[in-house]
Protein backbone atom coordinates (compact mmCIF):
# COMPACT_ATOMS: atom_id res chain seq x y z
CA UNK A 1 0.00 0.00 0.00
CA UNK A 2 1.42 3.34 -0.96
CA UNK A 3 1.66 6.30 1.32
CA UNK A 4 -0.93 8.28 -0.66
CA UNK A 5 -3.64 6.12 0.84
CA UNK A 6 -4.40 7.69 4.21
CA UNK A 7 -6.40 5.76 6.73
CA UNK A 8 -7.87 6.82 10.05
CA UNK A 9 -5.75 5.83 12.99
CA UNK A 10 -8.07 3.27 14.45
CA UNK A 11 -8.37 1.38 11.17
CA UNK A 12 -4.83 0.18 11.52
CA UNK A 13 -5.58 -2.23 14.32
CA UNK A 14 -5.43 -5.11 11.98
CA UNK A 15 -3.78 -8.49 11.98
CA UNK A 16 -4.52 -10.69 14.92
CA UNK A 17 -2.24 -13.39 13.60
CA UNK A 18 -1.84 -15.93 10.89
CA UNK A 19 -4.73 -17.65 9.25
CA UNK A 20 -2.90 -20.87 8.72
CA UNK A 21 -2.82 -24.02 10.74
CA UNK A 22 0.03 -23.87 13.23
CA UNK A 23 2.09 -26.99 13.70
CA UNK A 24 1.35 -29.01 16.79
CA UNK A 25 4.73 -28.57 18.46
CA UNK A 26 4.51 -24.80 18.79
CA UNK A 27 1.01 -24.89 20.20
CA UNK A 28 0.68 -25.24 23.95
CA UNK A 29 -1.57 -28.01 25.16
CA UNK A 30 -4.32 -25.71 26.37
CA UNK A 31 -4.26 -23.70 23.20
CA UNK A 32 -4.38 -26.88 21.20
CA UNK A 33 -7.38 -28.08 23.13
CA UNK A 34 -9.14 -24.82 22.45
CA UNK A 35 -8.18 -25.01 18.83
CA UNK A 36 -9.44 -28.57 18.55
CA UNK A 37 -12.68 -27.57 20.15
CA UNK A 38 -12.99 -24.58 17.89
CA UNK A 39 -11.85 -25.94 14.62
CA UNK A 40 -13.27 -29.38 14.94
CA UNK A 41 -16.17 -28.33 17.15
CA UNK A 42 -15.81 -31.30 19.42
CA UNK A 43 -17.85 -31.66 22.53
CA UNK A 44 -15.82 -31.24 25.70
CA UNK A 45 -15.56 -34.97 26.29
CA UNK A 46 -14.35 -35.55 22.78
CA UNK A 47 -11.82 -32.78 23.13
CA UNK A 48 -10.42 -34.32 26.31
CA UNK A 49 -10.24 -37.71 24.63
CA UNK A 50 -8.50 -36.13 21.68
CA UNK A 51 -6.04 -34.52 24.04
CA UNK A 52 -5.28 -37.84 25.68
CA UNK A 53 -4.63 -39.65 22.45
CA UNK A 54 -2.48 -36.85 21.12
CA UNK A 55 0.07 -38.35 18.78
CA UNK A 56 3.77 -37.44 18.81
CA UNK A 57 4.62 -34.57 16.51
CA UNK A 58 7.02 -36.53 14.37
CA UNK A 59 4.22 -38.84 13.30
CA UNK A 60 2.03 -36.13 11.90
CA UNK A 61 2.39 -33.95 8.87
CA UNK A 62 0.67 -30.75 7.87
CA UNK A 63 -0.04 -30.56 4.20
CA UNK A 64 -1.55 -27.83 2.16
CA UNK A 65 -4.29 -28.50 -0.35
CA UNK A 66 -5.21 -25.70 -2.68
CA UNK A 67 -6.00 -22.94 -3.45
CA UNK A 68 -5.13 -24.19 -6.89
CA UNK A 69 -6.22 -27.79 -6.84
CA UNK A 70 -8.42 -29.56 -9.36
CA UNK A 71 -10.83 -30.98 -6.81
CA UNK A 72 -11.35 -28.05 -4.49
CA UNK A 73 -14.12 -26.54 -6.61
CA UNK A 74 -12.35 -23.32 -7.32
CA UNK A 75 -10.00 -21.67 -4.93
CA UNK A 76 -10.69 -23.34 -1.60
CA UNK A 77 -7.57 -24.00 0.43
CA UNK A 78 -7.34 -26.62 3.14
CA UNK A 79 -4.63 -27.19 5.68
CA UNK A 80 -4.69 -30.82 6.72
CA UNK A 81 -2.86 -32.43 9.57
CA UNK A 82 -2.32 -36.06 8.73
CA UNK A 83 -1.19 -39.08 10.62
CA UNK A 84 -0.43 -41.49 7.87
CA UNK A 85 -3.55 -41.47 5.78
CA UNK A 86 -5.85 -40.22 8.52
CA UNK A 87 -6.91 -36.61 8.80
CA UNK A 88 -6.46 -35.33 12.35
CA UNK A 89 -7.19 -31.66 11.87
CA UNK A 90 -8.40 -29.66 8.95
CA UNK A 91 -8.79 -25.96 8.50
CA UNK A 92 -10.41 -24.36 5.49
CA UNK A 93 -8.82 -21.08 4.45
CA UNK A 94 -10.99 -18.96 2.25
CA UNK A 95 -10.94 -15.49 0.76
CA UNK A 96 -9.04 -16.28 -2.41
CA UNK A 97 -12.01 -15.14 -4.43
CA UNK A 98 -13.04 -12.23 -2.24
CA UNK A 99 -14.53 -9.76 -4.65
CA UNK A 100 -15.80 -7.02 -2.38
CA UNK A 101 -19.30 -7.45 -3.77
CA UNK A 102 -20.95 -6.20 -0.62
CA UNK A 103 -18.99 -2.97 -0.99
CA UNK A 104 -19.65 -2.71 -4.72
CA UNK A 105 -23.32 -3.31 -3.98
CA UNK A 106 -23.36 -0.11 -1.93
CA UNK A 107 -22.16 1.83 -4.96
CA UNK A 108 -24.77 0.49 -7.36
CA UNK A 109 -28.42 1.52 -7.51
CA UNK A 110 -31.15 -0.93 -6.65
CA UNK A 111 -31.80 -1.47 -10.34
CA UNK A 112 -28.15 -2.33 -10.94
CA UNK A 113 -27.96 -4.48 -7.82
CA UNK A 114 -28.90 -7.82 -9.38
CA UNK A 115 -26.02 -7.44 -11.86
CA UNK A 116 -23.70 -7.50 -8.91
CA UNK A 117 -25.23 -10.20 -6.74
CA UNK A 118 -25.83 -12.59 -9.62
CA UNK A 119 -22.08 -13.13 -9.80
CA UNK A 120 -21.94 -14.57 -6.29
CA UNK A 121 -23.33 -18.04 -6.72
CA UNK A 122 -22.43 -18.58 -10.33
CA UNK A 123 -23.90 -22.06 -10.44
CA UNK A 124 -27.31 -20.77 -9.40
CA UNK A 125 -27.27 -17.05 -10.23
CA UNK A 126 -31.03 -16.55 -10.36
CA UNK A 127 -31.38 -17.33 -6.66
CA UNK A 128 -29.21 -14.47 -5.49
CA UNK A 129 -31.06 -12.15 -7.82
CA UNK A 130 -34.31 -13.39 -6.34
CA UNK A 131 -33.19 -12.89 -2.75
CA UNK A 132 -31.99 -9.38 -3.51
CA UNK A 133 -35.17 -8.46 -5.40
CA UNK A 134 -37.45 -9.85 -2.70
CA UNK A 135 -35.65 -7.81 -0.06
CA UNK A 136 -35.90 -4.62 -2.07
CA UNK A 137 -39.57 -5.30 -2.70
CA UNK A 138 -40.08 -5.84 1.00
CA UNK A 139 -38.49 -2.46 1.71
CA UNK A 140 -40.61 -0.84 -0.98
CA UNK A 141 -43.74 -2.63 0.25
CA UNK A 142 -44.79 -3.63 -3.24
CA UNK A 143 -46.36 -6.79 -4.58
CA UNK A 144 -45.23 -8.07 -7.94
CA UNK A 145 -47.86 -9.35 -10.41
CA UNK A 146 -48.94 -12.98 -10.43
CA UNK A 147 -47.21 -13.76 -13.70
CA UNK A 148 -43.91 -12.40 -12.46
CA UNK A 149 -44.15 -14.64 -9.40
CA UNK A 150 -44.73 -17.72 -11.48
CA UNK A 151 -42.02 -16.81 -13.98
CA UNK A 152 -39.64 -16.45 -11.07
CA UNK A 153 -40.62 -19.84 -9.75
CA UNK A 154 -40.24 -21.47 -13.13
CA UNK A 155 -36.84 -19.91 -13.74
CA UNK A 156 -35.41 -20.60 -10.30
CA UNK A 157 -36.50 -24.22 -10.41
CA UNK A 158 -34.91 -24.59 -13.83
CA UNK A 159 -31.82 -23.06 -12.32
CA UNK A 160 -31.96 -25.50 -9.44
CA UNK A 161 -31.99 -28.34 -11.96
CA UNK A 162 -28.96 -26.98 -13.76
CA UNK A 163 -27.15 -26.37 -10.49
CA UNK A 164 -27.74 -29.91 -9.27
CA UNK A 165 -26.70 -31.27 -12.65
CA UNK A 166 -23.46 -29.39 -12.21
CA UNK A 167 -23.07 -31.04 -8.83
CA UNK A 168 -23.62 -34.45 -10.43
CA UNK A 169 -20.89 -33.68 -12.94
CA UNK A 170 -18.30 -32.38 -10.50
CA UNK A 171 -19.09 -35.00 -7.88
CA UNK A 172 -18.53 -37.71 -10.46
CA UNK A 173 -15.33 -36.11 -11.62
CA UNK A 174 -13.94 -35.80 -8.11
CA UNK A 175 -14.58 -39.46 -7.44
CA UNK A 176 -13.00 -40.58 -10.66
CA UNK A 177 -16.24 -41.30 -12.52
CA UNK A 178 -15.18 -39.09 -15.40
CA UNK A 179 -17.92 -40.22 -17.75
CA UNK A 180 -20.39 -38.86 -15.21
CA UNK A 181 -18.80 -35.47 -15.69
CA UNK A 182 -19.46 -35.60 -19.40
CA UNK A 183 -23.07 -36.68 -18.85
CA UNK A 184 -23.62 -33.95 -16.30
CA UNK A 185 -22.28 -31.27 -18.61
CA UNK A 186 -24.37 -32.65 -21.47
CA UNK A 187 -27.60 -32.24 -19.51
CA UNK A 188 -26.58 -28.93 -18.04
CA UNK A 189 -26.11 -27.53 -21.53
CA UNK A 190 -29.71 -28.42 -22.26
CA UNK A 191 -30.90 -26.62 -19.15
CA UNK A 192 -28.73 -23.62 -19.92
CA UNK A 193 -30.15 -23.50 -23.41
CA UNK A 194 -33.57 -22.76 -21.97
CA UNK A 195 -32.19 -20.17 -19.56
CA UNK A 196 -30.39 -18.50 -22.44
CA UNK A 197 -33.54 -18.53 -24.53
CA UNK A 198 -35.37 -16.58 -21.83
CA UNK A 199 -32.69 -14.35 -20.33
CA UNK A 200 -30.22 -14.01 -23.16
CA UNK A 201 -27.28 -15.29 -21.16
CA UNK A 202 -26.02 -18.68 -20.12
CA UNK A 203 -25.09 -17.50 -16.64
CA UNK A 204 -25.11 -14.25 -14.67
CA UNK A 205 -28.51 -13.50 -16.08
CA UNK A 206 -29.58 -10.28 -14.34
CA UNK A 207 -33.08 -11.43 -15.15
CA UNK A 208 -34.96 -11.18 -11.86
CA UNK A 209 -35.03 -7.53 -10.86
CA UNK A 210 -36.84 -5.53 -8.19
CA UNK A 211 -40.40 -5.16 -9.45
CA UNK A 212 -40.59 -8.31 -11.55
CA UNK A 213 -38.46 -9.84 -14.24
CA UNK A 214 -36.50 -8.20 -17.05
CA UNK A 215 -38.50 -9.61 -19.94
CA UNK A 216 -41.52 -11.73 -20.60
CA UNK A 217 -41.13 -15.38 -21.52
CA UNK A 218 -40.40 -15.63 -25.26
CA UNK A 219 -42.67 -17.33 -27.79
CA UNK A 220 -42.32 -21.07 -27.70
CA UNK A 221 -41.00 -21.20 -24.15
CA UNK A 222 -43.32 -24.08 -23.37
CA UNK A 223 -41.64 -26.19 -26.01
CA UNK A 224 -38.26 -25.44 -24.48
CA UNK A 225 -39.43 -26.49 -21.02
CA UNK A 226 -41.18 -29.60 -22.29
CA UNK A 227 -38.12 -30.65 -24.27
CA UNK A 228 -36.09 -30.64 -21.08
CA UNK A 229 -38.80 -32.28 -18.99
CA UNK A 230 -39.21 -35.07 -21.53
CA UNK A 231 -35.51 -35.62 -21.90
CA UNK A 232 -34.37 -35.54 -18.30
CA UNK A 233 -36.12 -38.60 -16.77
CA UNK A 234 -34.39 -40.93 -19.19
CA UNK A 235 -31.06 -39.30 -18.58
CA UNK A 236 -31.49 -39.40 -14.82
CA UNK A 237 -32.25 -43.09 -15.12
CA UNK A 238 -28.87 -43.41 -16.82
CA UNK A 239 -27.26 -41.77 -13.80
CA UNK A 240 -29.03 -44.27 -11.63
CA UNK A 241 -27.60 -47.16 -13.59
CA UNK A 242 -24.17 -45.63 -13.82
CA UNK A 243 -23.72 -44.44 -10.24
CA UNK A 244 -26.28 -45.69 -7.76
CA UNK A 245 -25.80 -49.30 -8.70
CA UNK A 246 -22.07 -49.10 -8.96
CA UNK A 247 -20.34 -50.67 -5.94
CA UNK A 248 -17.19 -48.54 -6.19
CA UNK A 249 -19.16 -45.32 -6.21
CA UNK A 250 -21.28 -46.41 -3.27
CA UNK A 251 -18.27 -47.53 -1.29
CA UNK A 252 -16.60 -44.18 -1.81
CA UNK A 253 -19.62 -42.29 -0.49
CA UNK A 254 -21.56 -44.41 1.97
CA UNK A 255 -20.64 -43.81 5.57
CA UNK A 256 -18.14 -41.14 4.62
CA UNK A 257 -18.33 -37.72 6.26
CA UNK A 258 -21.35 -38.29 8.46
CA UNK A 259 -22.96 -35.50 10.48
CA UNK A 260 -26.08 -35.39 12.60
CA UNK A 261 -28.92 -32.93 12.82
CA UNK A 262 -27.91 -31.31 16.11
CA UNK A 263 -24.46 -30.55 14.83
CA UNK A 264 -25.96 -29.12 11.66
CA UNK A 265 -28.27 -26.81 13.59
CA UNK A 266 -25.49 -25.66 15.89
CA UNK A 267 -23.32 -24.84 12.92
CA UNK A 268 -26.19 -23.08 11.13
CA UNK A 269 -25.99 -25.50 8.24
CA UNK A 270 -28.92 -25.60 5.84
CA UNK A 271 -29.93 -27.15 2.58
CA UNK A 272 -29.17 -30.69 1.41
CA UNK A 273 -26.61 -31.19 4.18
CA UNK A 274 -29.21 -30.53 6.86
CA UNK A 275 -31.80 -32.61 5.05
CA UNK A 276 -29.39 -35.51 4.64
CA UNK A 277 -29.46 -35.97 8.41
CA UNK A 278 -33.17 -36.59 8.32
CA UNK A 279 -34.10 -33.09 9.49
CA UNK A 280 -37.14 -32.12 7.51
CA UNK A 281 -36.57 -28.46 6.66
CA UNK A 282 -37.05 -26.68 3.39
CA UNK A 283 -37.88 -22.97 3.27
CA UNK A 284 -39.98 -23.47 0.16
CA UNK A 285 -42.42 -25.51 2.21
CA UNK A 286 -41.84 -24.33 5.77
CA UNK A 287 -41.66 -20.58 5.21
CA UNK A 288 -43.06 -20.26 1.71
CA UNK A 289 -42.14 -17.37 -0.52
CA UNK A 290 -43.35 -16.65 -4.06
CA UNK A 291 -46.18 -19.14 -4.64
CA UNK A 292 -44.55 -22.28 -3.33
CA UNK A 293 -47.54 -22.84 -1.08
CA UNK A 294 -49.63 -23.41 -4.21
CA UNK A 295 -47.54 -26.15 -5.75
CA UNK A 296 -47.23 -29.74 -4.73
CA UNK A 297 -43.79 -31.19 -4.12
CA UNK A 298 -41.97 -33.37 -1.62
CA UNK A 299 -39.08 -32.42 0.61
CA UNK A 300 -36.52 -35.18 0.29
CA UNK A 301 -34.65 -36.17 3.43
CA UNK A 302 -31.92 -38.69 4.06
CA UNK A 303 -31.22 -40.82 7.08
CA UNK A 304 -27.47 -41.24 7.59
CA UNK A 305 -26.14 -37.76 6.90
CA UNK A 306 -23.26 -39.11 4.86
CA UNK A 307 -21.91 -38.19 1.44
CA UNK A 308 -24.14 -40.66 -0.33
CA UNK A 309 -27.28 -39.19 1.23
CA UNK A 310 -26.26 -35.73 0.14
CA UNK A 311 -25.70 -37.00 -3.38
CA UNK A 312 -28.97 -38.91 -3.45
CA UNK A 313 -30.94 -35.93 -2.11
CA UNK A 314 -29.69 -33.72 -4.89
CA UNK A 315 -30.56 -36.33 -7.47
CA UNK A 316 -34.04 -36.63 -6.03
CA UNK A 317 -34.43 -32.86 -5.85
CA UNK A 318 -34.01 -32.69 -9.61
CA UNK A 319 -37.12 -34.84 -9.87
CA UNK A 320 -38.98 -32.62 -7.40
CA UNK A 321 -37.97 -29.50 -9.30
CA UNK A 322 -39.25 -31.05 -12.49
CA UNK A 323 -42.57 -31.61 -10.71
CA UNK A 324 -42.71 -27.92 -9.77
CA UNK A 325 -41.76 -26.82 -13.29
CA UNK A 326 -44.57 -28.93 -14.70
CA UNK A 327 -47.04 -27.25 -12.35
CA UNK A 328 -45.67 -23.85 -13.36
CA UNK A 329 -46.41 -24.77 -16.97
CA UNK A 330 -50.01 -25.54 -16.11
CA UNK A 331 -50.65 -22.65 -13.80
CA UNK A 332 -48.73 -19.86 -15.54
CA UNK A 333 -51.15 -16.92 -15.40
CA UNK A 334 -51.48 -14.19 -18.00
CA UNK A 335 -50.72 -10.58 -17.22
CA UNK A 336 -47.83 -8.26 -16.58
CA UNK A 337 -44.36 -9.60 -16.06
CA UNK A 338 -43.32 -6.57 -14.00
CA UNK A 339 -45.12 -4.25 -11.68
CA UNK A 340 -46.93 -1.31 -13.25
CA UNK A 341 -45.61 1.17 -10.75
CA UNK A 342 -44.05 4.21 -12.34
CA UNK A 343 -41.74 4.61 -9.42
CA UNK A 344 -39.96 1.32 -9.99
CA UNK A 345 -40.60 0.31 -13.56
CA UNK A 346 -39.30 2.14 -16.63
CA UNK A 347 -41.84 2.85 -19.37
CA UNK A 348 -42.04 0.37 -22.24
CA UNK A 349 -39.71 0.98 -25.16
CA UNK A 350 -42.52 1.89 -27.54
CA UNK A 351 -43.71 4.74 -25.32
CA UNK A 352 -40.30 6.42 -25.35
CA UNK A 353 -40.59 7.15 -29.07
CA UNK A 354 -43.83 9.06 -28.71
CA UNK A 355 -43.73 10.71 -25.30
CA UNK A 356 -41.21 13.16 -23.92
CA UNK A 357 -42.28 12.41 -20.35
CA UNK A 358 -41.67 8.74 -20.86
CA UNK A 359 -38.20 9.48 -22.18
CA UNK A 360 -37.36 11.64 -19.18
CA UNK A 361 -38.83 9.06 -16.84
CA UNK A 362 -36.81 6.30 -18.48
CA UNK A 363 -33.66 8.40 -18.29
CA UNK A 364 -34.17 9.22 -14.63
CA UNK A 365 -34.83 5.64 -13.60
CA UNK A 366 -31.70 4.41 -15.29
CA UNK A 367 -29.41 7.21 -14.19
CA UNK A 368 -30.62 8.03 -10.69
CA UNK A 369 -32.50 4.88 -9.90
CA UNK A 370 -35.51 4.76 -7.66
CA UNK A 371 -35.46 5.71 -4.01
CA UNK A 372 -36.22 3.14 -1.37
CA UNK A 373 -37.66 4.24 1.99
CA UNK A 374 -35.50 4.02 5.08
CA UNK A 375 -35.48 0.74 6.92
CA UNK A 376 -33.93 -2.65 6.99
CA UNK A 377 -35.12 -6.11 6.03
CA UNK A 378 -33.89 -9.67 5.74
CA UNK A 379 -35.43 -12.11 3.30
CA UNK A 380 -34.34 -15.71 2.88
CA UNK A 381 -35.00 -18.23 0.15
CA UNK A 382 -34.02 -21.84 -0.40
CA UNK A 383 -31.19 -21.99 -2.86
CA UNK A 384 -29.76 -25.32 -4.10
CA UNK A 385 -27.17 -25.03 -1.34
CA UNK A 386 -29.36 -23.93 1.55
CA UNK A 387 -30.78 -20.79 3.03
CA UNK A 388 -29.77 -17.81 0.95
CA UNK A 389 -30.61 -14.56 2.67
CA UNK A 390 -30.20 -10.94 1.83
CA UNK A 391 -30.04 -8.17 4.41
CA UNK A 392 -30.39 -4.61 3.17
CA UNK A 393 -30.23 -1.37 5.13
CA UNK A 394 -31.65 1.57 3.23
CA UNK A 395 -31.03 5.20 4.13
CA UNK A 396 -33.69 6.50 1.75
CA UNK A 397 -31.38 7.03 -1.20
CA UNK A 398 -31.29 5.11 -4.45
CA UNK A 399 -28.54 2.70 -3.52
CA UNK A 400 -28.35 0.37 -0.52
CA UNK A 401 -26.60 1.70 2.55
CA UNK A 402 -25.52 -1.81 3.43
CA UNK A 403 -26.11 -4.95 1.42
CA UNK A 404 -25.21 -8.23 3.00
CA UNK A 405 -25.81 -11.66 1.55
CA UNK A 406 -26.03 -14.66 3.82
CA UNK A 407 -24.39 -17.23 1.61
CA UNK A 408 -25.23 -20.87 2.35
CA UNK A 409 -21.86 -22.17 1.11
CA UNK A 410 -20.03 -19.85 3.48
CA UNK A 411 -21.76 -21.36 6.48
CA UNK A 412 -21.83 -24.90 5.15
CA UNK A 413 -18.10 -24.84 4.67
CA UNK A 414 -17.71 -24.78 8.45
CA UNK A 415 -18.70 -28.43 8.53
CA UNK A 416 -15.56 -29.48 6.67
CA UNK A 417 -13.27 -29.81 9.74
CA UNK A 418 -15.97 -31.76 11.48
CA UNK A 419 -16.74 -34.06 8.55
CA UNK A 420 -13.10 -34.76 7.83
CA UNK A 421 -11.97 -35.53 11.36
CA UNK A 422 -10.74 -39.10 11.39
CA UNK A 423 -11.48 -39.81 7.77
CA UNK A 424 -8.95 -40.85 5.16
CA UNK A 425 -7.26 -38.23 3.07
CA UNK A 426 -8.73 -39.75 -0.07
CA UNK A 427 -12.18 -39.18 1.36
CA UNK A 428 -11.41 -35.49 1.78
CA UNK A 429 -12.13 -34.96 -1.89
CA UNK A 430 -15.44 -36.79 -1.64
CA UNK A 431 -16.39 -34.70 1.38
CA UNK A 432 -15.56 -31.35 -0.19
CA UNK A 433 -17.52 -32.37 -3.22
CA UNK A 434 -20.56 -33.43 -1.24
CA UNK A 435 -20.70 -30.10 0.60
CA UNK A 436 -20.90 -28.54 -2.87
CA UNK A 437 -19.41 -25.14 -2.03
CA UNK A 438 -19.41 -22.42 -4.66
CA UNK A 439 -16.44 -20.28 -3.80
CA UNK A 440 -17.84 -17.18 -5.43
CA UNK A 441 -20.55 -17.28 -2.83
CA UNK A 442 -18.26 -18.21 0.03
CA UNK A 443 -15.96 -15.27 -0.51
CA UNK A 444 -18.31 -12.80 -2.14
Amino acid at each position, binding site marked *: *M*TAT*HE*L*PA*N*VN*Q*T*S*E*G*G*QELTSADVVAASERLR*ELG*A*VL*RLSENDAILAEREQVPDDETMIINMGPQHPSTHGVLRLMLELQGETVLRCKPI*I*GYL*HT*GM*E*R*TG*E*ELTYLQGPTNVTRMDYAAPLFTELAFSLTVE*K*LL*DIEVPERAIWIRMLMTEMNRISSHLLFMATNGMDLGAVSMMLYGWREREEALRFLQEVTGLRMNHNYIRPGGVAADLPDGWRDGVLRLLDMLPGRLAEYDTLLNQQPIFRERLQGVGAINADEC*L*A*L*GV*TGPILRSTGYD*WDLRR*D*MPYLAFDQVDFDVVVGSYGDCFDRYAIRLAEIHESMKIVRQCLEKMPKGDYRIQDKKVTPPPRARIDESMEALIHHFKIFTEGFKVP*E*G*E*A*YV*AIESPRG*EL*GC*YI*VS*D*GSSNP*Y*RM*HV*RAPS*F*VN*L*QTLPHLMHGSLVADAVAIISSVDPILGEV*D*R
Partner: protein
Amino acid sequence: MTDIDAQSGEADTPAEIAPETLFDTLLTHSHGQLVLHPTRESYPGLLATLHAAGYHSVVDLCGVDYLTNDSRQLPAAIEPERFEVVVNLINHRERARLRLRVQVPEIDAVLPSAFILYPGTEAMERETFDMFGISFDGHPDLTRILMPEDWIGHPLRKDYDVGRIPVQFKGAPANR
Protein backbone atom coordinates in the same frame (compact mmCIF):
# COMPACT_ATOMS: atom_id res chain seq x y z
CA MET B 1 -41.76 2.17 6.95
CA THR B 2 -39.53 2.81 9.89
CA ASP B 3 -38.30 0.66 12.66
CA ILE B 4 -40.56 2.24 15.17
CA ASP B 5 -43.90 0.69 14.90
CA ALA B 6 -45.30 0.56 18.36
CA GLN B 7 -44.90 4.26 18.93
CA SER B 8 -45.14 5.82 15.52
CA GLY B 9 -48.93 5.89 15.51
CA GLU B 10 -49.10 8.19 18.48
CA ALA B 11 -45.90 10.11 18.26
CA ASP B 12 -47.32 12.96 20.35
CA THR B 13 -47.54 10.98 23.53
CA PRO B 14 -44.75 8.45 23.38
CA ALA B 15 -44.03 8.59 27.08
CA GLU B 16 -47.39 7.22 28.03
CA ILE B 17 -47.04 4.02 26.05
CA ALA B 18 -44.69 1.47 27.47
CA PRO B 19 -42.27 0.29 24.80
CA GLU B 20 -43.01 -3.15 23.49
CA THR B 21 -40.72 -5.88 24.75
CA LEU B 22 -39.99 -9.52 24.07
CA PHE B 23 -37.70 -11.66 26.22
CA ASP B 24 -37.27 -8.52 28.38
CA THR B 25 -35.71 -6.72 25.44
CA LEU B 26 -36.98 -3.76 23.46
CA LEU B 27 -38.88 -4.92 20.42
CA THR B 28 -39.63 -3.14 17.17
CA HIS B 29 -41.15 -4.25 13.93
CA SER B 30 -39.57 -3.80 10.57
CA HIS B 31 -41.74 -4.76 7.61
CA GLY B 32 -43.41 -7.46 9.65
CA GLN B 33 -40.11 -8.81 10.97
CA LEU B 34 -39.36 -8.81 14.68
CA VAL B 35 -36.28 -6.89 15.77
CA LEU B 36 -34.85 -7.00 19.27
CA HIS B 37 -32.50 -4.32 20.59
CA PRO B 38 -30.32 -5.74 23.35
CA THR B 39 -27.50 -3.71 24.82
CA ARG B 40 -23.96 -4.93 24.70
CA GLU B 41 -24.26 -6.09 28.28
CA SER B 42 -27.54 -7.96 27.89
CA TYR B 43 -26.57 -9.57 24.57
CA PRO B 44 -25.00 -12.80 25.90
CA GLY B 45 -27.84 -13.33 28.34
CA LEU B 46 -30.41 -12.78 25.64
CA LEU B 47 -28.69 -15.32 23.40
CA ALA B 48 -28.84 -17.89 26.20
CA THR B 49 -32.54 -17.17 26.71
CA LEU B 50 -33.23 -17.47 23.02
CA HIS B 51 -31.27 -20.69 22.75
CA ALA B 52 -33.35 -22.16 25.55
CA ALA B 53 -36.52 -20.88 23.89
CA GLY B 54 -35.89 -22.90 20.74
CA TYR B 55 -33.87 -20.57 18.58
CA HIS B 56 -31.26 -23.20 17.83
CA SER B 57 -29.58 -21.65 14.83
CA VAL B 58 -27.90 -18.35 14.15
CA VAL B 59 -28.63 -17.95 10.50
CA ASP B 60 -26.62 -14.85 9.89
CA LEU B 61 -24.41 -12.40 11.68
CA CYS B 62 -23.09 -9.27 10.03
CA GLY B 63 -21.94 -5.79 10.84
CA VAL B 64 -23.21 -2.42 9.68
CA ASP B 65 -21.24 0.82 9.82
CA TYR B 66 -23.63 3.72 10.45
CA LEU B 67 -20.98 6.41 10.07
CA THR B 68 -22.76 8.33 7.32
CA ASN B 69 -26.32 7.34 8.06
CA ASP B 70 -27.87 9.31 10.90
CA SER B 71 -31.45 8.72 9.80
CA ARG B 72 -31.96 5.32 11.38
CA GLN B 73 -34.75 4.85 13.87
CA LEU B 74 -34.10 3.16 17.16
CA PRO B 75 -36.14 2.86 20.35
CA ALA B 76 -35.63 5.91 22.56
CA ALA B 77 -33.81 3.94 25.25
CA ILE B 78 -31.14 2.74 22.85
CA GLU B 79 -28.11 4.94 22.36
CA PRO B 80 -27.06 4.85 18.69
CA GLU B 81 -23.42 3.99 18.09
CA ARG B 82 -21.29 3.87 15.00
CA PHE B 83 -21.35 0.10 14.51
CA GLU B 84 -24.16 -2.34 14.72
CA VAL B 85 -23.97 -6.11 14.75
CA VAL B 86 -27.05 -7.73 13.28
CA VAL B 87 -27.83 -11.30 14.25
CA ASN B 88 -30.57 -13.33 12.60
CA LEU B 89 -31.88 -16.33 14.49
CA ILE B 90 -34.35 -18.97 13.50
CA ASN B 91 -36.67 -21.19 15.47
CA HIS B 92 -37.36 -24.20 13.31
CA ARG B 93 -40.12 -25.58 15.49
CA GLU B 94 -42.24 -22.45 15.54
CA ARG B 95 -41.02 -21.34 12.13
CA ALA B 96 -40.16 -17.98 13.55
CA ARG B 97 -37.31 -15.62 12.94
CA LEU B 98 -35.84 -12.96 15.19
CA ARG B 99 -33.32 -10.29 14.48
CA LEU B 100 -31.03 -8.73 17.07
CA ARG B 101 -29.41 -5.35 16.52
CA VAL B 102 -26.62 -4.66 18.97
CA GLN B 103 -24.97 -1.25 19.13
CA VAL B 104 -21.17 -1.35 19.23
CA PRO B 105 -19.27 1.89 19.88
CA GLU B 106 -16.40 2.99 17.67
CA ILE B 107 -13.94 3.18 20.52
CA ASP B 108 -13.57 -0.22 22.13
CA ALA B 109 -15.44 -2.07 19.37
CA VAL B 110 -15.81 -5.34 21.19
CA LEU B 111 -18.78 -7.64 21.54
CA PRO B 112 -19.02 -10.94 23.44
CA SER B 113 -18.76 -13.86 21.06
CA ALA B 114 -21.73 -16.12 20.47
CA PHE B 115 -19.43 -19.01 19.70
CA ILE B 116 -20.04 -21.12 22.79
CA LEU B 117 -23.78 -21.30 22.23
CA TYR B 118 -23.75 -21.11 18.47
CA PRO B 119 -20.53 -22.54 17.01
CA GLY B 120 -21.82 -21.68 13.55
CA THR B 121 -21.06 -18.03 14.18
CA GLU B 122 -17.33 -18.72 14.05
CA ALA B 123 -16.86 -17.82 10.40
CA MET B 124 -19.41 -15.00 10.50
CA GLU B 125 -17.73 -13.29 13.44
CA ARG B 126 -14.39 -13.62 11.74
CA GLU B 127 -15.88 -12.01 8.66
CA THR B 128 -17.31 -9.16 10.72
CA PHE B 129 -13.94 -8.66 12.36
CA ASP B 130 -12.23 -8.70 8.99
CA MET B 131 -14.61 -6.28 7.32
CA PHE B 132 -15.39 -3.90 10.20
CA GLY B 133 -12.73 -4.41 12.83
CA ILE B 134 -15.27 -5.36 15.48
CA SER B 135 -13.64 -7.80 17.90
CA PHE B 136 -15.47 -10.67 19.50
CA ASP B 137 -14.54 -11.50 23.05
CA GLY B 138 -14.19 -15.23 23.54
CA HIS B 139 -13.87 -16.12 19.91
CA PRO B 140 -11.43 -19.04 19.53
CA ASP B 141 -9.63 -17.92 16.40
CA LEU B 142 -10.25 -14.30 15.57
CA THR B 143 -8.18 -13.76 12.46
CA ARG B 144 -8.89 -12.27 9.09
CA ILE B 145 -10.91 -14.63 6.97
CA LEU B 146 -11.45 -13.01 3.59
CA MET B 147 -8.61 -10.53 3.21
CA PRO B 148 -4.91 -11.49 3.32
CA GLU B 149 -3.72 -11.75 6.90
CA ASP B 150 -1.40 -8.74 6.64
CA TRP B 151 -3.94 -6.46 5.00
CA ILE B 152 -4.20 -2.96 6.37
CA GLY B 153 -7.63 -1.59 7.21
CA HIS B 154 -11.15 -2.93 7.34
CA PRO B 155 -12.69 -2.58 3.89
CA LEU B 156 -16.40 -2.36 4.64
CA ARG B 157 -16.00 0.61 6.94
CA LYS B 158 -17.50 3.68 5.39
CA ASP B 159 -14.26 5.66 5.68
CA TYR B 160 -12.34 3.09 3.67
CA ASP B 161 -11.80 3.83 -0.02
CA VAL B 162 -13.89 1.78 -2.38
CA GLY B 163 -11.80 1.56 -5.46
CA ARG B 164 -8.58 2.42 -7.18
CA ILE B 165 -6.62 0.89 -4.39
CA PRO B 166 -3.06 0.04 -5.39
CA VAL B 167 -2.22 -3.63 -5.47
CA GLN B 168 -0.97 -4.80 -2.11
CA PHE B 169 1.03 -7.42 -3.93
CA LYS B 170 3.44 -9.57 -2.01
CA GLY B 171 5.73 -12.03 -3.66
CA ALA B 172 4.88 -15.59 -2.84
CA PRO B 173 7.08 -16.76 0.04
CA ALA B 174 7.90 -20.22 -1.25
CA ASN B 175 10.60 -21.32 -3.68
CA ARG B 176 9.83 -21.02 -7.33
